[in-house]
């Protein structure tokens, strides 16, 4: 008898579960299926005091979705694009860029002077700087923060260690930075978040503090951070500048581009930021409910040849492959025109850019030239050039397999090349590249500072290209690059960089493929998105109009 009682219990449990499910389904359908505006206008976090009534026509909350991730919230260790974007909004550096341009503007300083032939920088700080907790920020804090970066020796510490000899506080609002040698682009370095002052009360002096949300001096402060899920920013009441139009910015992290697009369409997010699939951008462009924002990108993709590995040590082979590369088919087929073909390592739009590869090999693939070069190098239909092309399947997005397939196809069109394609996950890929074990690899580059130097020196200067497995070294190129680093006249530097680009096109150690454009897609009511080569969103400029 006992048994039957318990079984009855089991049945009751099952019936209860069924009821719960039915209730849940009914409940879930009671909700209007389109839940767009009402949820977002509701202030879920504390509506802060002062300027509330003045901004009534703008929504208090904006939700931005991204597939990027925050790596490390400590400026002494963070060195990736998205985390820097958060920093640009929460901890400013002495300098910054005027939105929409590549021109520098003063942020935390009122002025700076350069003396001693470019080796000494005197920074005059604003007198009204306050951290997000209200404590004042002075030259002492800036010095402490810079020295902390040097002490911790994190990933981006070279911004300090490579250039700076000493830093001194002259008075409460004046700081002196002595450089090891004159550096023509040092003001651009002063705009990276590694130079942002942070409160010494909140950060340990010699340890990385990865999930620290204290921040520095910026229009926003971080109020909540759940790794890989969300980041919530609120306006910083102590910010020296104008208060942003949007009080709360929520950043939602998505796993992939598809999820991001769906989130936009379901109304979960107001702005879909990096990176949507090309096909989604194209189809959203046709949809009048959304605005597609487009801007020049400074992101480049290229092929690296391991010149220490035969047959790629032969310049003729590299030239032939450069000539046979079909940039248009990659741009059109894989990216549906959302990127641009690139014929130099310096992206279009940056001063000193020169289409060196176009000048040498033409805009479209020149199969005849490629065949001629390959035959000269001793290859024929019976004795084909055999090479292995490597790619990494997820780091550069799901389009990467198609890019590799098209490169293979283009090279094999010469009839003299046989390409084997292989792939490895990101960490293996990097490690094998560093060890110089991969013959042909595909990589991409985001700039650290907007200067041609950052597109040439790390690739072509002896020693600086160790991350590519030290593939080559060339004295002339080294000399030109060193000279350009200390030269102060932009015209003269441009001439030097143009020469370097021509040498690269001739040697074809690295072959550029394309340059990214920037896209953000938002709801119609959203405005104030400015996309420029800095490739970051300035949350403080974004607003959303509330209808009615």
């Amino acid at each position, binding site marked *: 008898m006992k048994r039957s009682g318990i*079984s009855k219990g089991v049945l009751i449990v099952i019936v209860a579960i069924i009821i719960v499910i039915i209730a849940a389904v009914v409940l879930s359908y009671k909700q209007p299926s389109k839940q767009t505006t009402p949820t977002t206008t509701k202030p879920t976090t504390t509506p802060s005091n002062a300027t509330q009534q003045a901004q009534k026509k703008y929504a208090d909350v904006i939700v931005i979705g991204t597939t990027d991730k925050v790596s490390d919230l400590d400026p002494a260790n963070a*060195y990736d694009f998205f985390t820097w974007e958060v920093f640009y909004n929460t901890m400013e550096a002495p300098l910054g860029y005027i939105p929409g341009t590549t021109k520098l503007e003063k942020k935390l300083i009122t002025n700076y002077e350069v003396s001693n032939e470019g080796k000494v920088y005197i920074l005059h700080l604003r007198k009204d700087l306050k951290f997000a907790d209200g404590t004042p920020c002075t030259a002492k804090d800036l010095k402490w923060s810079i020295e902390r970066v040097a002490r911790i020796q994190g990933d981006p510490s070279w911004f300090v260690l490579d250039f700076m000899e000493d830093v001194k506080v002259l008075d409460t609002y004046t700081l002196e930075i002595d450089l090891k040698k004159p550096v023509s682009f040092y003001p651009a370095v002063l705009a990276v978040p590694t130079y942002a002052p942070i409160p010494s009360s909140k950060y340990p002096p010699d340890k990385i503090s*990865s999930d620290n949300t204290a921040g520095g001096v910026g229009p926003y402060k971080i109020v909540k951070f759940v790794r890989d899920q969300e980041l919530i920013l609120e306006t910083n009441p102590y910010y020296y500048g104008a208060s942003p139009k949007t009080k709360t910015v*929520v950043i939602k992290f998505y*796993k992939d581009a598809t999820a991001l697009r769906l989130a936009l369409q379901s109304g979960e997010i107001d702005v879909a930021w990096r990176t949507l699939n090309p096909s989604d951008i194209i189809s959203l462009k046709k949809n009048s409910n959304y605005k597609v924002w487009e801007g020049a990108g400074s992101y480049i993709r290229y092929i690296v040849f391991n010149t220490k590995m035969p047959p790629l040590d032969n310049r003729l082979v590299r030239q032939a492959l450069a000539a046979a590369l079909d940039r248009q088919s990659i741009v059109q087929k894989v990216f549906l025109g959302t990127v641009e073909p690139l014929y130099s390592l310096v992206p279009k739009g940056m001063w000193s850019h020169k289409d060196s590869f176009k000048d040498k090999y033409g805009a479209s693939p020149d199969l005849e030239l490629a065949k001629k070069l390959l035959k000269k190098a001793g290859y024929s239909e019976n004795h084909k050039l055999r090479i292995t092309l490597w790619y990494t399947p997820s780091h550069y997005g799901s389009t990467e397999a198609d890019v590799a397939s098209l490169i293979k196809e283009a090279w094999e069109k010469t009839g003299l090349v046989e390409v084997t394609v292989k792939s490895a996950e990101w*960490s*293996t890929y990097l490690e094998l590249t560093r060890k110089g074990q991969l013959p042909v690899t595909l990589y991409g580059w985001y700039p650290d500072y907007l200067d041609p130097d950052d597109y040439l020196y790390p690739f072509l200067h002896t020693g600086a290209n160790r991350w590519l497995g030290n593939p080559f070294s060339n004295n002339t190129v080294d000399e030109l690059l060193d000279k350009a680093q200390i030269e102060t006249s932009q015209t003269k530097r441009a001439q030097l960089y143009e020469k370097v680009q021509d040498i690269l096109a001739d040697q074809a150690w690295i072959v550029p493929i394309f340059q990214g454009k920037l896209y953000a897609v938002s709801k119609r009511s959203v405005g104030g998105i400015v996309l420029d080569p800095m490739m970051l969103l300035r949350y403080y400029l974004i607003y959303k109009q509330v209808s009615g």
Partner: protein
Amino acid sequence: MTSLKTYVITRVLLTIPMIFILLTLVFFVMRVLPGNPVIAMVGMKASQRYIKQLEHELRLDKPLWEQYVDYLNRLLHGDLGRSMIWGRRPVINEIMDHFPATLELTVWGFIFSVLLGLATGVVAGVKEGGKMDFAMRVYSIVVYSLFIPWFGMVLQLIFGVWLHALPVGGRINPLLTPKHITGIYVLDSMLTWNLPALSSSIRHLMLPSLTLGIVLSGIYTRLVRSSLIEVLGQDFIRACKSRGLPERSILFKHGLKNALIPILTMMGLQFALLLAGAVLTETTFSWPGIGTFLMERIEYRDFTTVQGTVVFYAIFVALISLIVDLIYAYIDPRVRY
């Protein structure tokens, strides 16, 4: 009850070699082959010196066996170590951040699959060898063959893109996230009586859990069917029939009731399948669970986190089957250990 106690202890002790074997396999496969977390994390721009420094901090420059002994030693003290990348958070925290999402998905998937399995299994088992029996057997094979990503994408297309009825990715509308109590959104929003959040999380759950539930229901169809057939063939059922009790009452009051006990034990075994299916479901629906998390950390070769996740999975599977066994022992007084 002492025999039960010994049984539990033996079972718990038996999971230790299981974890040890899996861990050893994963540990060595992972570290012998190229790729390491430091390089993956810092990317291509970092200096050699910085990489060496990080490797030293993470003790990756030590000999392999030393790292192994070290790891086992920590594990014995219940410490899964810290992640090797991005903030180096304790592995257990990372897992616990993602586990509620997976639990929520698998529990709902489980409920759906059991309900569907019961319904179809009963239909099949009532008349063995009949047309409906055959149809349900075909059903069980067909749904099991439905490739989860494909099936999920089809549901996304129909309900998400065409009908605009249900969201097709994520766990909840980000602005509605309930207060964190258990991390299981449905539960949290019920506890805080947050109706919009409850509704949003259930709507987000629908498609992924249905995908998982339907695909795995085939297994339960078979279990229910064979168990019911066995019970219906027993003497006491014949006795009921001869006494002239109505068919329906025989089936539900006596047949199904007794068939449920063996079904219950089999459920524990199927939980591993549910977890494996959840990985594909999570990937298809961008569900931020432990499966997508594991995939990401594998890509970055986050050694400690991958090991920790494997250990966690092993413990979880062992725990489920232990619980099921205990319930079985409690329900069925014939079972004594």
